[in-house]
């Protein structure tokens, strides 16, 4: 099973790596978009599955990254785009930190969910006022940057280079998150989720771990948003509102929220559903809504949980817990 999982990850990696040579440009665009969504969904799942906090306004942090990067590119700031990415991540982390210290002090459970939702809607409204961020229309026709390094330059105006830039950043972000959840902090986060009281007993500062998890998650969400600006070339308030906040939840749940790779499977599944039903208005909502209900009812552990269950039936006994 473990071997099968490794092979599956490798196949997935190769599929995304070779996508520009295998499929037509329309699908390549969707693949790039899916990679961005994967980073976004993983950042949410980091918070949900590992720290036990269900944020309903995660798109706000995605929006911070997307809008700052879009404005920087539109105004032609003389900065290397890699630097812009870092700045976006830092701003996302800062915004998430502010939200966390205000919200986590007072609220938990449903209050936490609704406060994060309200704060993200506030961001949508503030963007609507802002001339600089293009009101409700958003920022469109964002130019793609050319990055000059000392020895060579990377020209994102070439589609292939652009794809591999998004690919590289996403793989780096996914790798970082993987290291994070399998390290000391990840274990502390899981301890806090499973039993905050006991975690406090063994010397974990519960509040600090939660704030830290929220901050890190915000940074990754903002990075994903910042990648959207050069890839999609348009950023609108739709990427900030609560329906976009729901996307990572769908993906995580569909793929299996208890698994690190769950959101990856979920995003690919959702993208495929959206792509296959793109010509028939309404059908994609029916299918996505229906599959969500079916997953919640029949396979609460998501697709990966179902696969493990099937594998466990035929193979040997598998140890429980996150893997």
């Amino acid at each position: 099973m473990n071997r099968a999982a490794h092979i599956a990850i490798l196949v997935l990696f190769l599929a995304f790596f070779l996508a520009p040579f295998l499929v037509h440009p329309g699908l390549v665009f969707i693949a790039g978009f899916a990679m961005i969504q994967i980073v976004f969904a993983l950042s949410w799942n980091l918070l949900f599955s590992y720290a036990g906090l269900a944020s309903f306004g995660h798109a706000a942090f995605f929006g911070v990254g997307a809008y700052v990067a879009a404005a920087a590119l539109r105004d032609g700031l003389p900065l290397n785009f890699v630097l812009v990415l870092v700045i976006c991540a830092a701003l996302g982390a800062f915004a998430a930190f502010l939200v966390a210290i205000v919200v986590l002090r007072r609220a938990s459970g449903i209050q936490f969910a609704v406060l994060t939702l309200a704060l993200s809607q506030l961001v949508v409204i503030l963007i609507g006022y802002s001339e600089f961020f293009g009101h409700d229309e958003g920022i469109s026709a964002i130019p793609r940057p050319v990055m000059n390094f000392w020895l060579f330059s990377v020209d994102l105006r070439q589609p292939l280079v652009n794809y591999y830039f998004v690919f590289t950043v996403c793989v780096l972000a996914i790798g970082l998150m993987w290291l994070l959840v399998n390290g000391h902090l990840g274990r502390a986060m899981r301890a806090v989720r499973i039993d905050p009281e006991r975690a406090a007993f063994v010397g974990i500062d519960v509040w600090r771990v939660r704030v830290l998890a929220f901050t890190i998650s915000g940074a990754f969400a903002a990075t994903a948003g910042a990648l959207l600006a050069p890839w999609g070339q348009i950023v609108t308030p739709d990427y900030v509102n609560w329906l976009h906040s729901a996307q990572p939840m769908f993906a995580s749940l569909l793929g299996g929220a208890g698994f690190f790779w769950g959101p990856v499977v979920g995003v690919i599944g959702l993208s495929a559903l959206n792509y296959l039903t793109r010509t028939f208005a309404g059908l994609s909502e029916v299918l996505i809504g229906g599959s969500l209900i079916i997953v919640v009812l029949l396979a609460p552990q998501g697709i990966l949980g179902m696969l493990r269950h099937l594998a466990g039936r035929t193979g040997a006994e598998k140890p429980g817990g996150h893997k």
Partner: protein
Amino acid sequence: MTSLYLYAIFNGVVLGMAIFLVAAGLTLAFGIMKIFNFAHGAFFMIGAYVAHAITGQEASSLPLFLGAALVAAMVVGSVGVLADLAIFRRLAGVPAEYTLMAAFGIMLLCTGVTRIAFGQSVHAIYPPAALSGMFFVGFPITAYGLFIIGCGVAVFLLLEIGLNRLWFGKLVLAVARDPWMANVSGLRVQRLKLISVAISFALAGVAGGLLVANQSLSLDLGHSYLLLAFCAVIVGGLGSIRGAFIAAIIFGLAESLNSVLLPTMPGIGVYALLIALVLIRPQGLYPELSQ
């Protein structure tokens, strides 16, 4: 200047009653099922579409308008019963997040089905002739606004008296507060739950049928009211009818006065108020005992 403020206050109360009509079913569903029903907005929208399908663009008479709202209530109520039997009942023991996802799934499903059944176009709907009048008492008052206030107060009184004074309401409260104990003392918990869920969904249908006039009927109709109703339910204290009523009026006034006092920043008052209120009083205005 005073008349402007009075006009804004009147509009705020009308909006508050409209929010309450949506929030009433939501808070009832929360009190009984212990879930935050994201699908409520979608059911509200279905109610509006059903009423529109019956009356057309303008209801020819007041009884037809009310009748259409009643039919919408019955349709949505029976859809709610189906949803409870097929989905929510099976999710009784699982963590709240999964139920939320299921509700989200139902919302998407309903939106998709409505899109397929009724199309994407936006319809303009007008209240029936009996309600389209206007009065001047220093500022203009619409008959439809008065009608909405009347409906809101009527639903509030019905629920408040029904839940706290009538035998059936007390049974429902007993089931909501402690299902296990209610079961031990011989109540039919599942049946009572089902009835109250049906009432909660029927309320969404009524709200859809009543509020559809003076709106542009579109697939986004549910979302705009749903978020405001969420705010009212949270601030009111989850599951409390009285709290939802007061909070709905507060938010209606906030939204309406916002457009007079801060015309350059529409829509900000509600969310700022929500954040402040939840931080000051996270348990809500009237915290329910069962929490």
